[in-house]
């Protein structure tokens, strides 16, 4: 684009996160994401848990939100999963 005298090129970056919710959860989710103490909007677009957050009734966002707030990277999450005991041992521990 020839800009001539109009000055340097201005680039505006807009990060949008998409959320689906029902009318009853709407209020609480909006406050969670845009309220005073919101943590989620601090995340850059490279964060693994970006983009689509879906919360039908009760927040699956609750779970996602909890993980997000701990600031875990995918690497750390993977390590946690690897360190977990095998499933049958887990069920024995459960009893």
């Amino acid at each position: 684009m020839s800009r001539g005298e109009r000055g340097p090129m201005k680039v505006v970056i807009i990060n949008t996160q998409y959320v689906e919710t029902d009318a009853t959860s709407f209020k609480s989710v909006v406050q969670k994401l845009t309220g005073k103490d919101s943590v989620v909007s601090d995340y850059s677009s490279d964060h693994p848990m970006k983009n689509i957050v879906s919360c039908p009734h009760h927040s699956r966002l609750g779970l996602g939100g909890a993980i997000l707030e701990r600031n875990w990277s995918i690497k750390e999450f993977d390590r946690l999963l690897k360190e977990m005991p095998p499933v049958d041992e887990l069920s024995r521990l459960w009893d």
Partner: protein
Amino acid sequence: MKKIKSRRKVREPRFCFKTLSEVDVLDDGYKWRKYGQKVVKNTQHPRSYYRCTQDNCRVKKRVERLAEDPRMVITTYEGRHAHSPSHDTEESQAASNAQLNSDFFW
């Protein structure tokens, strides 16, 4: 001679909500004032622009309907509030309780 540098500006992140609703403007616990309206192509539903009415709070939102499915309301928020939500629920709860009491015929 001035060097021409491109300026990058990062806007506050946006949250785009998709909700099934007959009501256009859903209650989110905040107070808003409408400052604009724009006709959107290919749909009879205009887009409305709102600003948070709290002092020093610069949150904006826009409300429109999804062209492919007009049952869905799209609410896009930009920015974060600098204050707690205005919970009128306590006052309206008290008011509705008073109402309830006066309706009984003892």
